[in-house]
């Protein structure tokens, strides 16, 4: 038999003791296998006392003093039931039907085999073999254990210092939103978006540059074989690699001092992409050859209206 935790066993025993009207210690002993099992039909609990009391008590009852009963805070068993419960083990050891035989006179006497239609309410301690006469489909109930009701979701929220979203966060967000709108309005009033001549398939501008966020890649293309710079680097490192970051970096700490390597690598990435982009934007002239913006001018049409470099 597997080891049942003491706490569970105790709780189960208390419940069973309450249901049967027996002392907890006895049930506990039975459950541990230290004492023989008492066969008590549950009906005895519900039986109206007047009808049950007249039944002849077993001769052993007077010999058992009430003292050995441990204090049961849940329910003090009624005397009639105690009589049944405190039957000496020797008498109980016998099969249940035999034990019940002496009391056929009592109309409400426990009678498992009679099939009196109240079997559904029966709490039998050992119902492994259904007694004869039980209708098909009617089963004995057995109390296995009592499980305390718990919430489906266990909420374990640590107390944190919180403030109301309104107004504390909303005002900050709204201010940022207004500032961004103002900034964009001013920017759009001052700076005209570039519009060159109409598209012409026969006139390739020199140099031809990608949008600025791809210029770092284009810059790398001028150093490496396209198979490496145009494909492997951006897709593997750029996409898959970036998505994999949380699964590669197993360090649970978020403190900067604990993650020097991660911060260093990311900073190298940032600095590298910024350098490549700036090189591509400002330092590349005709033929995508190296050029000094202060000598040859800026070859970047997105910036055409920003500053007049007068280069080209």
């Amino acid at each position: 038999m597997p080891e049942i935790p003491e706490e569970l066993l105790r709780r189960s025993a208390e419940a069973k003791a309450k249901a049967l009207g027996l002392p907890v210690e006895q049930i506990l002993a039975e459950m541990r296998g230290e004492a023989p099992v008492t066969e008590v039909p549950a009906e005895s609990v519900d039986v109206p006392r007047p009808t049950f009391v007249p039944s002849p008590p077993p001769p052993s009852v007077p010999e058992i003093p009430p003292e050995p009963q441990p204090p049961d805070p849940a329910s003090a068993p009624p005397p009639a039931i105690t009589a049944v419960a405190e039957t000496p083990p020797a008498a109980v050891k016998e099969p249940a039907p035999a034990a019940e035989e002496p009391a056929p006179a009592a109309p409400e006497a426990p009678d498992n085999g009679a099939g009196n239609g109240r079997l559904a309410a029966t709490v039998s301690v050992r119902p492994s073999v259904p007694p004869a006469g039980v209708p098909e489909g009617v089963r004995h109930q057995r109390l296995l254990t009592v499980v305390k009701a718990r919430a489906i979701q266990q909420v374990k929220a640590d107390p944190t210092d919180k403030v109301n979203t309104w107004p504390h966060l909303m005002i900050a967000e709204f201010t940022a939103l207004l500032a961004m709108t103002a900034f964009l309005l001013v920017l759009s009033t001052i700076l005209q978006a570039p519009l060159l001549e109409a598209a012409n398939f026969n006139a390739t501008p020199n140099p031809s540059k990608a949008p600025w966020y791809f210029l770092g890649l284009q810059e790398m293309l001028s150093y490496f074989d396209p198979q490496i710079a145009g494909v492997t680097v951006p897709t593997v490192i750029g996409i898959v690699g970036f998505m994999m970051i949380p699964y590669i970096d197993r360090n649970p700490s978020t403190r900067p001092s604990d993650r020097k390597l991660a911060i260093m690598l990311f900073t190298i990435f940032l600095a590298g992409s910024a350098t490549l982009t700036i090189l591509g934007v400002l330092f590349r002239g005709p033929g995508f050859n190296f050029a000094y913006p202060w000598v040859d001018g800026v070859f970047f049409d997105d910036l055409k209206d920003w500053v007049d470099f007068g280069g080209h």
Partner: protein
Amino acid sequence: MSTRNGIHGLLAKARTHATDMVGRMWSGQFMDSMLRPGSPFKKGYTDTPRNRSYVIMNNVLYHLHPVKVKRHGVKLSYTLCLGGLSFFLFILLTVTGIFLMFYYAPTAERAYIDVQALSTDIAFGSLMRNMHRWGAHLMVLTVFLHMSRVFYHGAYKPPREFNWVVGVILLLLTLLLSFTGYLLPWDQLALWAVTVGTNMAGFVPVIGAQVKFALLGGVEVTAGTLLRWYVLHVLFLPFIIVIFLAVHFWRVRKDGGISGPL
């Protein structure tokens, strides 16, 4: 009111009724039904903790924000509002983009002329186009900076790993949205920047040629590419990005709100 017969009496009655109805609508039932309990725009709003909670709880913003947030997350220096600003730029770009759609036809004959007209003829056309263009560049920047901020805070660590993945997808979609929009003015800058950009996609080892063909709708940029990228730009990619945005925002809350202080 004295009872008068004829048309004047009827008119007076109608006016009284109308005034009553309008008054009722704005002071009573209509505003009551429009504003949920606790709204600061509602009559009788007082600054109490209960009402502060109601403002969020009974508001569509409850989809985005919980009633309470960690105090350190409210500090501007923690997030620099970069995620919020990226989303706001997305909204601005949607608004200005819809304006531009009224005056733009994605055909090789019309596209360039339309953009020219937007820059010169149409009221607020220039402003809208400029805001759309600079806003798009700005959004690429804010999304990228947002990602950097999240990295430096280690905010991608459990339980927020998957939201980082969603974020990388959002960055990719932002780049794609910007890149597809780049072609639409149909000028030399657009044509050749896109040619260079898609040539880079053509370098993909096994499927490169196919990817490039699918992107361009041909072996090189054509009028068909313009229509294709227009549809991607105004319909397909915004649709996809909104789905991912919804997941992203939802996960921010489900993963325990903003990441803890360092």
